[in-house]
């Protein structure tokens, strides 16, 4: 498993609006955690920065994180990754993410984002389990995976259907199948929920011999291209559960109590810059509000209202 695969070649990370909304929502949640007493600025951030380091820049600027490690497993872009590292304070490690997880200090608290771009595999789940075994209490673990059906659509429906998808998952994650699981759980629209349940089971396995639990906080579903699921939460005890429960849920409306809860759908409606200005002037809007100056579906207005605070603005910059 490559930590980045080649997704950095497929899409410019800066033009993934849903992903950026997700990052900003996480940032918002971390700021709230800081307000409720967690020393987030002292946390160590470990992620898969690839050649863009967007999450690193965001968390350094707005959370004040100064201990940051980007892990790159692709040996073909060693120099490129080093070259693109935006801050001296970021340590770039050229190794497997799983090897780096073993090196995370158990004395320090961490934010670890396993931002994979592949579908679930045995190796990927092993890395998640390792993280659950290693991360200290009050650390935050985030896992992102592709939840598109495995295999190739061009093979045709006889070889690309819920039965074959279930076969893939059985091979890669059969140990985490539950009693009564069936091909229905592998229908395209059920894959996010099935993946979340498997990831939860793997995290529980990693925590089995520890005096700590996984407190689910996030479940995002979005698609800038492929449909992606991001789940996350904190490794902690009863006191942490209580503190997380007390977070301002109105502010953090996207938060979840369990990673297996219905995910928060990040949908970014396509609007022009002019439309956006107009929409922003009317935000936050009532639930039945619609723009009077141009046509916009009610569902798009609802989506926009949910994400406008986190929606990135893109402009062309002539360097």
């Amino acid at each position, binding site marked *: 498993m490559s930590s980045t695969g080649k997704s950095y070649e497929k899409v410019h990370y800066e033009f993934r609006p849903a992903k950026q909304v997700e990052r900003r929502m996480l940032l918002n949640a971390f700021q709230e955690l800081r307000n409720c007493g967690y020393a987030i600025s002292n946390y160590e951030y470990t992620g898969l920065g690839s050649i863009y380091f967007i999450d690193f820049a965001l968390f350094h600027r707005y959370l004040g994180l100064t201990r940051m490690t980007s892990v790159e497993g692709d*040996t*073909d872009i*060693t120099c490129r990754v080093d070259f693109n590292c935006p801050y001296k304070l970021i340590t770039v490690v050229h*190794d*497997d993410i*799983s*090897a*780096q*997880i*073993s*090196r995370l200090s*158990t004395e320090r608290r961490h934010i670890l984002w396993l931002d994979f771009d592949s579908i679930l595999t045995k*190796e990927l789940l*092993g*890395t998640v*389990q*390792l993280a659950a*075994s*290693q991360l200290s209490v009050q650390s935050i673990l985030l896992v992102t995976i592709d939840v598109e059906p495995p295999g190739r659509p061009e093979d045709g429906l006889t070889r690309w259907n819920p039965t074959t998808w279930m076969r893939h998952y059985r091979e890669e994650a059969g140990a985490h199948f539950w009693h009564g699981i069936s091909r229905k759980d592998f229908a395209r629209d059920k894959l996010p929920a099935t993946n979340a349940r498997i990831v939860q089971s*793997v995290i529980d*396995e*990693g925590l*089995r*011999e*520890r005096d700590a639990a996984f407190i689910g906080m996030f479940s995002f579903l979005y698609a800038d291209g492929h449909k992606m699921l991001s789940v996350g939460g904190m490794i902690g005890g009863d006191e942490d559960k209580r503190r997380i429960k007390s977070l301002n849920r109105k502010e953090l409306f996207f938060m979840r109590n369990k990673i297996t809860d219905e995910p928060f759908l990040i949908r970014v409606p396509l609007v022009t810059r002019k439309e956006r200005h107009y929409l922003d002037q009317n935000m936050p809007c009532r639930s039945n509000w619609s723009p009077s100056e141009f046509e916009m579906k009610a569902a798009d207005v609802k989506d926009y209202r949910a994400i406008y605070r986190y929606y990135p603005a893109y402009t062309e910059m002539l360097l």
Partner: protein
Amino acid sequence: MPLANAHPKKRFFIEMFTRDIPLLDCVLDLIDNCVDGLARTGRLQMYTISDDIFGKSSNKAPCDADRPHVRVEFDTQHFRISDNCGGIDYKYALEDVFNFGHSTTRSKEYLGVYGVGMKRALFKMGDSFEIDSKTVNNGFKCKLDIINWMDKDATMGDWTIPLTETHAAKSPKQAGTEIIVSPLKKEVANLLASPSFESDLSKAISRVYAFLVGKHLKISVNNVDIEPFNIPLGKPREGKTSYEEFKHDDVKVRIFATLTSAAHERPTKDNSGWYVACNGRLVLVADTSEITGWGVGAMPIWVPKYTAFIGFVFFESKNALELPWTTTKRGVNRESEVYRKAISRMAVLARPILSFCNRKYGKDEDQEPIEREIARQMKPTTLASLVRKEGSAFEIVVPKEQKTKTTIRVQYDASISDIEKVRKHLRKPRMGAGTIGEHTFNYFLRQEGLK
């Protein structure tokens, strides 16, 4: 309320119980009894043996001449094990040694923890045995015809073994025990006659007692001294190996993981994997199975590219019953809490080494990854030198200038007749194909003005 019978039957212990253990493990159980002699006389504390291994020297190793000697001898007629490890006290023999299971008051510091090993071994091997043991205070003899003894099983009064008190040893050096089993069971005699049994037993002793043999005692098999297993531990020139320790109830656990040393013989599957020791006795050696977590959860299935991996787990406790070993002491109790906790940490500590092993096999066949060179440079080391005050994870410092190699291997096929033409042209009939390749390549560079 009517009471149902729940009486023990000798036949169960003699004919059934003995089926669960291989002969080789029975011999090891008898050697454990010898080692326990040292522990009873205060010459060795098994629960601090790890301290010796890790350089603290809690147990003083005797000099060569004073080193106790365990002799194992066998042929197709008899099996004999004798030692001068201190012997078995007569009172202790009367009250505890021949019980099936130990009393709760008995010290739990010994290798003989379950109270079944010696009896099971003797019942497994033959139809009759003799024991002659002497301490510096007293002595006893015992001779038992197992078949006759098994037949008398009417009451609990039949569950006794006759002992004869004898004189004490003249000196501590002469205090010890001799056990002779004869006649042997037919299948045992056949196994003992096999040449592979002697070598398998010697190899097992060398590994199981790797931390005792040659230091705290001498063991010989058919008059050939056993050499302790040379653990091929490696240490990088620059970087760290994996280490962690923790306590779970009364058990202290130390975990080490590293690469094998290049100075030792080429790593093989025989030496690779996890080694698990309980109070200094190795219960698993070079294990690459699910028992030590391979192929489970975060650990991949062991494949040959992981041959250079070597890991050690030490469990130690004053209460040997808390240790995660099985009654044969050649395996672990996977359900024990302390072992389950250790397994999850073993996976974490092994991971960077396995990633390193993966990188030894790069995508580009022409370029040799730098990891291979680093692996070749691993220096031999000892467990003592791998102990850290704080936990550490395996990390190699790759020299910056070595990250990118400046050469690449060029390989191609050329027709033999063309090679012959070049040899003739250069008037060098013995010129090798590789040299011709280099020569012609350099010729091109010079001709084109590229060099």
